[in-house]
């Protein structure tokens, strides 16, 4: 008897349910409109919250991925952003504070046929859930993590977060916060994430482009989305959003293009000693010195250097895809191991129970 690689032993109840569903509902519907992803649930974020913009952008761009709604699962933790699944007509789980990447890992690893998304915030992903985030990234499980960074705790009404700037005055830090913030992109690259991007909530075009690439990436993708909390941290990203200052401080990342930015392309990024990068005036350097963005570099140190260009006041913020490299995804490798284990056929329970030294007691 020969067994083909990848042949499942017998259809599981999961396979049977999906087959039955196809019989009952016909082939999967993948030609959808943005409104098909809306649910009947009233959206309950504060009026003016950046989350609305992100929700709209996600719902509008999802049809372009060609994924059936039933094949998508959104897992979230706790926080304002984590209400996201309730508003998406897909499968979803609103789980526990910080644990969404862990829950999504089990789902994605056992169901590689699904498109698994995590929606999280700066407190959820970087504070209480920091451990799960870095391990999800290093494992490279196939999932897309949207990290809504508003640099504040909103749902608990305004305490500083792990991305708040030093000296932040909040209810819990009346004399200013003391701890140094995480740079989520640097953190993700430190965990050797295979896809790391950053986008602005209000930049529909830029956000959609990063999300599209993240969704298409095999492995874990992390997208940091700067998101305005108009109640507790209003204007946190104004420096980058204001048409007067935004272009000056934003470094758009386009693969294969020189890193030139600012009004009239006055600024650029050049190499520095010890492998770092620095900002220069374009007319002061030889064009050959200007770095041409390459998101596919295997070594994460270039992308890391990019992430270090910005300081906590957000000046010189690169926006776009920092890193996009191909590595085998955890779920695919796990499936391969199962296939390999079944090369000589599916497991035989009788033989397993019988294993080892046995003896017979006669009647």
């Amino acid at each position, binding site marked *: 008897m020969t067994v083909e690689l990848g042949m*499942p032993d017998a259809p*599981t*109840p*999961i396979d*049977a*349910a*999906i087959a*039955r*569903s*196809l019989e*009952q509902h016909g082939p999967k*519907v993948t030609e959808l409109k943005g409104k098909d992803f809306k*649910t009947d649930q009233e959206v309950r974020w504060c009026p003016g919250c950046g989350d609305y913009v992100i929700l709209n952008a996600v719902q509008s761009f999802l049809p372009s991925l060609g994924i*059936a709604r*039933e*094949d*998508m*699962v959104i897992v979230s933790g706790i926080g304002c952003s984590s209400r996201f*699944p*309730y508003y*998406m007509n897909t*499968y*979803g*789980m*609103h*789980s*526990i504070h910080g*644990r969404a990447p*862990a*829950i*999504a*890992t*089990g*789902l994605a*690893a*056992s*169901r590689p*046929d*699904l498109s698994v998304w995590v929606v999280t915030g700066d407190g959820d992903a970087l504070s209480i859930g920091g*451990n*799960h985030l870095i*391990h999800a990234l290093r494992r490279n499980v196939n999932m897309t993590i949207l990290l809504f960074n508003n640099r504040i705790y909103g749902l608990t009404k305004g305490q500083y977060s792990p991305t708040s700037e030093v000296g932040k005055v909040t209810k819990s830090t009346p004399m200013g916060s003391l701890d140094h913030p995480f740079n989520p992109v640097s953190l993700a690259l430190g965990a050797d994430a295979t896809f790391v991007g950053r986008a602005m909530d209000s930049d529909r075009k830029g956000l959609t482009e990063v999300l599209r690439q993240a969704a298409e990436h095999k492995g874990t993708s992390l997208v940091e989305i700067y998101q305005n909390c108009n109640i507790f941290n209003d204007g946190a990203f104004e420096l980058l959003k204001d048409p007067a200052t935004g272009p000056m401080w934003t470094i758009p990342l386009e693969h294969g293009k020189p890193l030139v930015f600012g009004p009239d392309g006055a600024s650029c990024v050049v190499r520095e000693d010890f492998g770092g990068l620095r900002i220069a005036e374009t007319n002061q350097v030889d064009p050959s010195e200007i770095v041409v963005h390459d998101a596919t570099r295997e070594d994460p140190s270039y992308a890391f250097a990019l992430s270090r260009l910005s300081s906590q006041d957000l000046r010189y913020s690169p926006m776009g895809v920092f890193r996009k490299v191909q590595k085998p995804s955890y779920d695919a490798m796990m499936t391969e*191991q*199962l296939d390999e*284990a*079944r090369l000589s*056929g*599916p*497991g035989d*329970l009788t033989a*397993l*129970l*019988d294993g*080892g*030294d*046995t*003896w017979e*007691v*006669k*009647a």
Partner: protein
Amino acid sequence: MTGTNPTVAPSNPDGALATTVSSSAPGGLVKSVVALDRVVIRLAGDSGDGMQLTGNRFTSETASFGNDLKTLPNFPAEIRAPTGTLPGVSSFQLQFADHDVMTPGDAPDVLVAMNPAALKANLSELPGGGLLILDSDEFTPRNLAKVGYATNPLEDGSLEGWQTVSVALTSMTLEALKDSGLGKKEAERSKNMFTLGLLSWMYHRPTEGTIRFLERQFRRKPEIAAANIAAFRAGYNYGDTTEAFAVSYEIKPAPMKPGRYRNISGNQALALGLVAAGQRSGLPIFLGAYPITPASDILHELSRHKAFNVRTFQAEDEIAGIGAALGASFGGALGITTTSGPGVALKAETIGLAVMTELPLVIVDVQRGGPSTGLPTKTEQSDLLQAMFGRNGEAPIPVIAPRSPGDCFDAAVEAARIALTYRTPVMLLSDGYLANGAEPWAIPDADSLPDLTSAVAFATEPNGEDGEFLPYLRDPETLARAWAIPGTAGMQHRIGGLEKADKTGNISYDPANHDFMTRTRQAKIDGIAASIPLTDVEDPDGDARVAVIGWGSTYGPIGSAARQVRGSGRKVAQIHLRHINPFPSDLGEVLARYDRVICPEMNLGQLSLLLRAKYLVDVQSHTQVSGMPFRSAGLAAVIQDAIDSTTASLNGAQQ
């Protein structure tokens, strides 16, 4: 060779039946064979001496010979404490018999001590007159000083109360391996196999299994395999020819139910039960686990069975382990997490989420001594109340417990049945004693195991009146909610930790709904009682007035104690619980039948508390938290006292 007692008379320290037959051994030595009905042997040595391996091999030989047996491995949490010190002593005890045995024995009949530390740590438990076998080579001034022996016990007469045989185990092993090409240090490591050979001769054990095992174990290092086999044979032949041992012992096979048997540990049986649950439900298995003593062997075992559609995930922490398992359950797999008490504490919040999302999940807690890090390698039953109540909010979950190593298999299948049928997290409480202990196990017929396919019914069609899918619409009988998995069209829904509206599962803050849902979740768990057997009572005469009730691994010691009590002409009923939440539906009535109910536990009275609270029964709690299992003699005395005082007070009342 030195010895305080060069030849050993027939050993029968505890009144076990013995008959002596003389026979002639090679070399004209007259050796006698004594028939015994049971023996308890304890092997003790340094952590590096391989006592656990030696014990396991002797167990395998004994099991395949056909004796019934129970084992008790006992080792320190330190992987290698300093050589020759008391904290580094590791031991392995087994009782084997020509009849069914329920425990590894209260005290050893035979103690093998590989060094002074092993002697010092164990001698107090060897009853006077017991057989003591020592490695004389290890009784050096340096080793004696390490454990505070001022004089050498081999020479100072302090061992006169025992039948002491000191054997130069190390030097004889070296002598046997002098042509093996191995260095002294390496050759010395085979002394455990020399010892095993000697014991195999003493107790007429079959040796082929051990030789096959050594060949298999060291197939990549044939010279090591050869050395171990040579040492093993040398030990056997030494026993056969030496004058030091004039007697060997015969323990006839125990009558056991016909069938095919293997020797199995609790962790192994539990892992196989989980594989079987996957096969019998058709579902893929997903184990999310973080290494922890004494549960890690379940992770190791399951990770070897990928061919059974088993995925194992070593998570970054306990929380991620259960989180991933719950995520897999959401996708339609049977999610499992395995841990010990400290891990359960970390998993509490996710168990609550599983209660709220009403997804199947099996949580295995191999209990160890607590609190905090406690005694990682020792046994205890002190997580019962944590299992019952260790979560925020009203978060009831079923709790079940196996009673013996082999029973871990059935308990695992039962845990999966409840989890799948009722869409609930289930807590399976094993413990260190069951996990590492072993016994002969009648291999079940795979096709006769419970069929769990009907427990899995994925919804694929809307169940609402308006053609919508209602994830919290319940089966009227089990109260299990409808379970639709991602990938099935038209059934998209969102679940989570926030309170659910009845039927729709949408977020609801409505007071009446929360009250209803809280009571419904409780009613679902209570309703499981309808699917479990009535209380298991063992009362041979049917008219006992004192009952002893237990749960989990105390089954053996309690059962053995009950036998001793009955042997003295008294009557006692033994009640043992597999299901602790919910209890069997008739448990209250059953308890009310007795004048006295005694509840021995390896905690400070956790089951007693539950029984008293639920049934208003004046349960007499008897507790021990030494990290070791109960001794049946101690339990028998407690039961006997209870019976005698009950009878006395009743007689008094009648006068």
